């Protein structure tokens, strides 16, 4: 648009200047098209935010911020609160993050420092392929393969060994529940954290690592003392991106969390998250207020998802995390 204010080329008259004015027009058109396309991304964000707030307005004006803590969800009586869902989202994402940050960092260290080059070029792509598995397939697998495994093996084991902790307190029953959902989310988040962290670790200057080695540091001491500190901010950003993914995952969680409607101390019992409630209830919504409340859930989700992403961008100024995230 600013380009259109430029002088419009030399006077026409001979072939040369005609080519030139065609070039000018071509430049302006291309510039304009590119700018329009780029503005579409901004427009999309704005339109999504507007539409979601607009759809939620009835629920927002009815329930206000109390929606976030109120724990009853009874669409038939017009009583709607997202407390259980906020809790479920927080718990599943937190567990996923607690498991996937150390796992992801370990994998990244293996891929960037420990593994021989040939092994790296095989295992690296395989880890990234884990991220390519569609969530609906992972969730389906979670119901039919992983759930029964948890029910028969892992959950009874944890219950018998650590049953004194409230989170493992309940007797395992079905295999679906908060625990299953958290582990499925872990599977989805690990490759994100691993591939971002690996790229980060590879940017640590070789001289620093060599220096530490020359001073007699073991390989773990090099990782601990040089590699991790110099890329800590980027790893934190990767964790935030993973968190954003975990918070917003709807389908796989819906499939394995069991659509509970109460807060349970034990992870082996059912629960629900913001995103999965939207996926479950949209088709069977009974009232306008319920639909508006589902949009309200989407609004909460949008806000925390964007906050997680912005946090990642702010933490990792030096490193362009979005580049890897968009891969």
């Amino acid at each position: 648009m600013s380009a259109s204010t430029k002088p419009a080329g030399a006077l026409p008259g001979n072939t040369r200047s005609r080519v030139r004015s065609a070039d000018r027009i071509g430049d302006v058109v291309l510039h304009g098209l590119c700018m329009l396309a780029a503005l579409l991304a901004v427009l999309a964000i704005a339109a999504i935010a507007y539409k979601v707030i607009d759809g939620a307005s009835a629920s927002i004006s009815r329930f206000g911020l109390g929606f976030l803590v109120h724990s009853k969800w009874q669409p038939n009586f017009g009583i709607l609160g997202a407390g259980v869902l906020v809790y479920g989202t927080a718990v599943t994402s937190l567990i996923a993050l607690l498991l996937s940050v150390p796992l992801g960092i370990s994998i990244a260290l293996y891929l960037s420092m420990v593994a021989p080059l040939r092994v790296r070029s095989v295992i690296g792509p395989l880890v990234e392929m884990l991220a390519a598995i569609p969530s609906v397939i992972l969730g389906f697998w979670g119901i039919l393969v992983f759930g029964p495994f948890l029910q028969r093996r892992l959950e009874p084991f944890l219950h018998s060994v650590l049953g004194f902790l409230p989170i493992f307190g309940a007797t395992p029953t079905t295999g679906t529940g908060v625990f299953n959902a958290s582990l499925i989310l872990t599977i989805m988040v690990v490759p994100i954290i691993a591939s971002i962290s690996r790229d980060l670790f590879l940017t640590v200057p070789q001289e620093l690592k060599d220096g530490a080695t020359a001073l007699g540091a073991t390989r773990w001491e090099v990782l601990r003392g040089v590699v991790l500190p110099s890329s800590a901010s980027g790893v934190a950003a990767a964790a935030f991106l993973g968190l954003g993914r975990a918070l917003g995952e709807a389908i796989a969680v819906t499939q394995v969390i069991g659509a509970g409607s109460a807060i349970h101390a034990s992870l082996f019992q059912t629960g629900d998250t913001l995103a999965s409630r939207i996926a479950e209830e949209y088709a069977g919504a009974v009232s306008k207020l319920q639909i508006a409340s589902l949009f309200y859930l989407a609004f909460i989700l949008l806000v925390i998802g964007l906050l997680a992403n912005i946090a990642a961008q702010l933490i990792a100024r030096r490193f362009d995390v979005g580049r890897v995230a968009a891969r």
Partner: protein
Amino acid sequence: MNDPFGSSPEATDRPGPGGQPAAEEPDVLGPLAMDLPDPSGPLTPSGHLRRRQLISRLAEATQTAAALLAVAVLGIVVYSVASRGASVLSIGFLTKDPPQFVGVRGGGIAPAIVGTAVIIALATAVAMPIGILTALYLTEFAGRWPARAIRLALDLLNGVPTIVVGLFVFGLLVVGHHQSGFAGSFALAIVMLPLIARATQEVLLLVPAGLREAADALGVSRWRTVRGVVLPTARGGILTATVLAVARGAGETAPLIFLSSIFANTVSVNPFGHQGLANIPVYIFTLSEEANRYGFARAWGAAFILLAFILLANLGSRALNRRSTLSR
């Protein structure tokens, strides 16, 4: 071992007092010599150093185990899908309509396969040109601040939960109208746009500055440079980016569950039809929510086809990327 100094303990761990070469005067030092390293002894670590090396080995073993765990999970998931899905596959499974009623054996998923193909093709047709133009804007035209703003917008768009995208498109295109394959394509295009734009931008940044400068030096206008030099050089990378985005979009369920009808039971290629298009991810999702073993069998078959497509697309794009001159 890559660690060249792993087996030279004296240097760091047991220096002689004052750095004196200790064993040269064993008679003078007498019993004190016991504490000093013997330079003629074998170069094996002891004491503190041995502990440090042990910790290092343990850490490496843990990291290796973590990587193997991730690969094992991938293997188990792929094996589960392949072993259960392959037994369902047949020509009929690919070409027939699903049965009309729940709980019936047999039938195929032809409408879902065709529907997914149509939805994805349309989404790519929308997202690819916009994504490439956006990337061109970022690398060829934008100043520092506009580029930053657009990049941030793309990253945020990539961070919007896909279920929210689905709800947005539902509110925009379906409320007051009807479900349609086009609405699904629109939602997937929003999901794919930031992927294509960001990856294309990366590839465009790899086009050697020398090529652009050479074009400039010849007095070539910007758009001719883009068309004749930049885009052809980056073609392989752009194709890779698009294939990866297609693979990602093909598996997305959340944006589609509000937008495609579960009643679409016959093959249709019309994205504007009143029924919405069936598609594989939503079909798997619907079947996974009904506890029915024939439904589960069909879902495994559908999952097998989807997963095979996605993993092959990933592998293919990697191979393409390796061959293209601009790959990393």
